[in-house]
């Protein structure tokens, strides 16, 4: 890099010029503390502007920290006004790569900027490689798609509570729905599979055309769960999952409720279990017996005799249809 190290008046640095800005601005106070203690170890990179003054190429947080300390002059490496924008970005990326890994949101903003300069995903990928950041063209394409999504979704990806793939899967949602879903993920911080499950459930429900995802999530049925901050996140997720299930599978939920109600009446002990066929599609039920001695098994045999004569077992096996006339 052709850059002279100079001492620069902080008053001449235009922080509002964000041509090369794509990083998060958190932790400036902590950084100011360390600069105040040991000084600026790694000088920022500035570019001279044609009309005078400087813009930041790399080191927005460092410059902000120095200004917050009221430093009048700081050391900086200065590159000329004529240096092309792509090279400046590469300098910035290389500078960052030396200190920390860029998060997804930062990479997304960076790729968006570079794509405007380079035009193709392959060119973006090639431009980043020498600067020490490997972003294959397929990932560049994903970042470009993400950059077109609402800020709330991008923040979810940067904040690590929304996976990139789930975010892209939300592309087909309306803006309002995407924002509402990102909001739920921010509140519940579900894992990747859980994100998929929630999204698929909401999409299936909205697909029936009765209501949109955002109105559903804003309604009391859902918001009472997602906004109950006195309940821990894991429990709120379970409640949300259960609500989605009941709404997606109303008839199956009724059949399951009836089965478990009747099963309870059978008085099955802890070392026995009766399992229904998957989704009640097949007609074969499974009885599990756990035993540790012949006597124990004999006691199961007695219990089985009682269960076999129980009217609730008959009702279970008859598989009488729960009333679904209100559904269709």
């Amino acid at each position, binding site marked *: 890099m052709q850059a002279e190290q100079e001492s620069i008046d902080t008053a001449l640095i235009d922080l509002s010029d964000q041509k090369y800005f794509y990083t998060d601005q958190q932790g400036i106070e902590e950084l100011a503390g360390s600069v105040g203690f040991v000084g600026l170890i790694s000088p920022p990179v500035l570019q001279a502007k044609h009309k005078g003054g400087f813009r930041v190429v790399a080191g927005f947080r460092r410059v902000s920290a120095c200004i917050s300390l009221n430093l009048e002059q700081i050391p900086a490496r200065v590159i000329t006004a004529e240096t092309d924008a792509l090279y400046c970005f590469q300098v910035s990326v290389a500078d960052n790569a030396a200190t920390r890994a860029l998060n997804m949101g930062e990479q997304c903003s960076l790729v968006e900027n570079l794509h405007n300069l380079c035009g193709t995903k392959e060119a973006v990928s090639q431009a980043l490689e020498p600067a020490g950041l490997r972003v294959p063209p397929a990932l560049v394409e994903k970042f470009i798609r993400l950059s077109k999504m609402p800020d709330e979704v991008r923040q979810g990806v940067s904040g690590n509570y929304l996976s990139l793939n789930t975010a892209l899967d939300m592309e087909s949602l309306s803006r309002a729905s995407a924002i509402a879903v990102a909001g739920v993920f921010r509140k519940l911080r579900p894992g990747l599979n859980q994100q998929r499950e929630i999204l698929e459930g909401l999409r299936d429900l909205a697909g029936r*055309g009765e209501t949109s995802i955002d109105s559903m999530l804003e309604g009391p049925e859902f918001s009472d769960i997602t906004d109950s901050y006195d309940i821990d996140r894991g429990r709120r997720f379970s409640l949300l999952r259960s609500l989605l299930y009941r709404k997606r599978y109303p008839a199956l939920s009724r059949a399951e409720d009836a089965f478990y109600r009747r099963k309870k009446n059978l008085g099955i002990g802890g070392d026995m279990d009766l399992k229904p066929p998957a989704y009640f599609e097949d*007609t074969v039920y499974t009885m599990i017996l756990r035993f540790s001695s012949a006597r124990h098994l004999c006691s199961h045999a007695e219990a089985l005799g009682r269960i076999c004569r129980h009217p609730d077992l008959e009702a279970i096996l008859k598989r009488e249809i729960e009333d679904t006339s209100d559904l269709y």
Partner: protein
Amino acid sequence: MTEQITARLKVPVQYVKDPAEVYKTVSNTRDPGSAGKSVLLLTRNKGPFIRRCPGTSHYTCCGYRILHIGTYCSMDCAYCILQAYYHPPVLQFFTNHEKMETELKAFFGQKKTGRIGTGEFTDSLIWEAIHPIAGRLVDMFSRQHTAVLELKTKTVLVDNLPRSGHGGKTILAWSLNTERIISNEEHGTASLAVRIAAAEKCQAKGYPLAFHFDPMLLYPGCKQEYGRVADMLFERIDPENIVWISLGSFRFMPELKDVIARRFPDSKIVFSEFIKAMDGKMRYFKPLRIELYRSLIERIREKAPDVLLYFCMEDDEVWEKALGFTPDFFGGLARMLDKSAEKICGLYPER
């Protein structure tokens, strides 16, 4: 035949060495499901023309045979299984009819009742517009007495069918659905009233008839609407002429869900209460299927108490609860259908 068809169609023609070139072109499009309908591949059927219906595990299948005249379809039903069955789906018509006729002659020589149809991998009658094949098949079937041909369609392209001389060995069959489903989901197909009118025309020519309520779809008010379809049917059609009526509810391979969501964004059909059934396909939760069948069966039975009703791909529990018996009681589903075909179509296979 290829020249005749291309001359009739008056569309740009391209000769390809290998059908794989066409498959590749279609696969590389953004929407192969639509692209496959915009080309017509005229080619030889390198495999057998007569195949077993693929059926499915765990559910009762009817022992049907497929006469494989072509693939895919020029109409565009949102639920069409062919969109996901072929990779990619391509409209293709097989031109080596000599081979087909040789296989058919062997099929007629079997000493048992045969039921075969052209409407599984395509619609039976769409091809009439480019190369009328139904008339030739009707004629071939009329000259034997062991097998019956079923032409299953959602079109009304029946004017080319012979007025007489068919010997009752060809069954004209229509898939039926509610007006709402036809207009929202069965794009490019004939309306319900027009289908029934075409069936009535065939009835007048003495053809045996069949109807398929398949796929039945669940939505609020569906029971009343399917009942209305049955009413419309029996206002015009004499149950005595009906060889069979099948009932089947919407079921699909899980991959079809994304295809439908992408190709038919306004369709709501994949968002109902589906469970993964024993054969891996998505089906409505069983009690919902049974309820739907029961209500339609009741309506059909009011008008046509003796017509043969059967389920396409359902298990004994559904049969028992919706129809009151299982196929075993009558010697199995295949036997039930054979008997009806023998009676109404006048088959007399040597046993």
